[in-house]
């Protein structure tokens, strides 16, 4: 399969371009996505090419334009709504949770909402406590939504197209720390959007993660290999619905699991995955399930404190060593 090297940002843009090309019902809407080219420059250049009918700048009103997107989807269009960051998505929460997620149900199946809502997420850019959130768990909590977290460049390129083909609302989280990174992009998706993928095979411990933490888990697996610990890395990719089979069968093989999640530990996705392993994989465990999550503090502004709060490769390595040694 031919692969090309793109930045994560370019991969996202290529995905949007293809969606616009493939289906004239598709349009992109959000704050500064047009003339400015997007807060994170993902849509740079698209306004000039596709024009204001399909690349629509909106006022600073998340509740309004997300609601418009939901209405457009009900009306037969295929909107891509960019909420600048997850931090501002709270303002659109009612539209997403109470409208997008429920209308198929509330209308007795008469209306489905094929909207895709993209949002940047995560910490690491010194944007301080209000602009560094990881709230994948909020959305993954809601029946009626699908939640994607592309952690690779190929997923950044192709998941949008897969999401647009889904008849129901899909939220896509794009981690801000990945945008400038370059990586290989395959011509075709590696799997359907709801499947988790084993990114690295191993025998001793399963590292379960997604999105911005995927490369940390892979780096940790490299370091662990030097210590003769063979780590398997499972990339969840889709946070709702969770592909439980993939991580359960990995844990059945390795008997040990560490979940790496940039969200806070309390009431987070890591806890949910841990609970699923307890319920369905308990008898294969040889060690307690462990979590490496963000410290339970508002994300600090100073770089060294911010990094200290976030999951780090060394922590994953330590944790894996500890459970391998039976500590």
């Amino acid at each position, binding site marked *: 399969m031919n692969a090309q090297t793109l930045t994560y940002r370019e991969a996202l843009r290529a995905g949007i371009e293809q969606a616009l090309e493939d289906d004239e019902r598709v349009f992109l809407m959000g704050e500064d996505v047009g003339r400015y080219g997007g807060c994170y420059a993902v849509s740079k250049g698209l306004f000039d090419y596709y024009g204001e009918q399909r690349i629509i700048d909106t006022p600073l009103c998340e509740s309004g334009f997300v609601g418009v997107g939901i209405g457009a989807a009900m009306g037969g269009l295929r909107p891509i709504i960019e909420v600048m960051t997850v931090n501002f998505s709270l303002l659109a929460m009612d539209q997403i949770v109470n409208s997008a997620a429920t209308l198929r149900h509330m209308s007795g199946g008469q209306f489905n909402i094929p909207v895709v809502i993209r949002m940047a997420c995560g910490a690491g850019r010194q944007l301080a406590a209000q602009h560094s959130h990881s709230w994948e768990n909020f959305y993954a909590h809601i029946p009626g939504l699908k939640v994607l977290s592309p952690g690779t460049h190929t997923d950044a390129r192709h998941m949008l197209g897969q999401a647009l083909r889904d008849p129901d609302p899909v939220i896509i989280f794009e981690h801000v720390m990945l945008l400038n990174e370059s990586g290989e992009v395959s011509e075709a998706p590696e799997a359907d959007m709801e499947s988790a993928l084993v990114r690295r095979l191993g025998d001793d411990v399963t590292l379960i993660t997604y999105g911005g933490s995927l490369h940390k888990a892979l780096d940790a697996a490299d370091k662990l290999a030097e210590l003769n610990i063979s780590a398997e890395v499972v990339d969840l990719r889709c946070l709702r619905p969770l592909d439980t089979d993939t991580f359960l069968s990995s844990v059945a093989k390795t*008997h040990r699991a560490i979940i790496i999640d940039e969200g806070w530990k309390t009431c987070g996705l890591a806890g949910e995955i841990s609970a699923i392993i307890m319920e369905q994989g308990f*008898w*294969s465990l*040889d060690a307690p399930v462990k979590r490496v999550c963000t410290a339970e503090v508002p994300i600090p502004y100073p770089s060294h404190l911010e990094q200290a*709060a976030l999951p*780090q490769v*060394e922590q994953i390595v330590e944790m894996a060593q500890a459970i391998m040694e039976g*500590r």
Partner: protein
Amino acid sequence: MKEEDSVAEILGNDIVEDIIMPSLGADMTEGMLVEWLVKPGDPVKRGDVIAVIETQKGAIDMEVYHTGVISEILHEPIVTLPVGTVMARVTLTEPGERAKVTPLDSVTVTPLDSVTVTPLDSISLTHVETSTPLASPVVRKMAMDQRLDLTEVKGSGPLGAILLRDLSGSNIDRTNAIEVDDAINTKKAMRGAIASAMSKSKNEIPHFYQSLDIELGNALQWLKRTNEDRAPDQHILLLALLLKAAAKALMKYPDLNGFYQNNQFVHAEEIHIGNVISLRQGGLVVPAIHNVDKLSVDETMEAIRDISVRGRSGHLRSSELTDATITITNMGERGTDTVFGVIYPPQVAIIGFGKVRETPQLVDGDLVNSEVMSVCLSADHRVIDGMLGAKFLNALSKQLQKPELL
């Protein structure tokens, strides 16, 4: 402090212990509850026979391991239950009865190193000691599926929990037992149990064999004299002397008495000699006579009669089938000159007694009629060397020359 409170709470309340379908050997997967001999409300004491269960090894009288009152009967006969199934519950009446309930020292999980700027919360764990060893879930599953006895395994995990790695290389039976389609088909099942134990033995134990012809003239004379005045059912048989002699020789050479597990030999403090009893319907049972070293010859004989009768009628006790520290096989008068036994794992030796035969011997140049028995020691070479085997057999011979002292 909280932990201590909760422990006190446990002690303050009734302590209830589960009575489970016992595992009578590594090859047993299930047993059939045939009859309860107790009902709820009945007081029981440790060692009481409370139920009859039918296993691959025949009908077994099931003992209770606690003193208390039967509080609940959970399964009614006749029903086949997997090993480990809770069959009933007993509320303990003696506080000391329970495996000690003592909180271990709080164990603090140390925070990760300096890279982790946010130390893990210190987790303090309190461990209430029970008779069940701590083991990880996968180990428990494996123990259940493969009928491993975890009490014999030393755990290397937190609080001594048994982890997967503690099982690797261990001598525990991991072979899959033969599927038992029909619990009532005990003959087939027993064949399967024998097959699995013997295959395991021959696959894993490096046997070596040593044989010694032992002069039994004195012993047979002594038996004849002793039995003269006794009613036939009070006769002492040669087997009782052989058992006693073996026990005394084992006291001198204890390295033949014990178990090889987890790549090491563990010497058994007590001498429980398993006796191979062949059943008329086919198959074998190997009940142990306990503490043979502490029994008189008469008591030993009584024990032999007891287990023979109960073995053939199917009323052996569960403990008798599991705690032998060494085994003897005795072919008797209809047997062969020599028997090369297969060790019953995890034991390390089996003594085979051939039949007594009359044989001419040269004594000071004269041919005399002599009564001898070939005694064959099969030993585990991982534990025992030939010199020890030879010393043991000669000590056994010596014991049998002075039967009056046994």
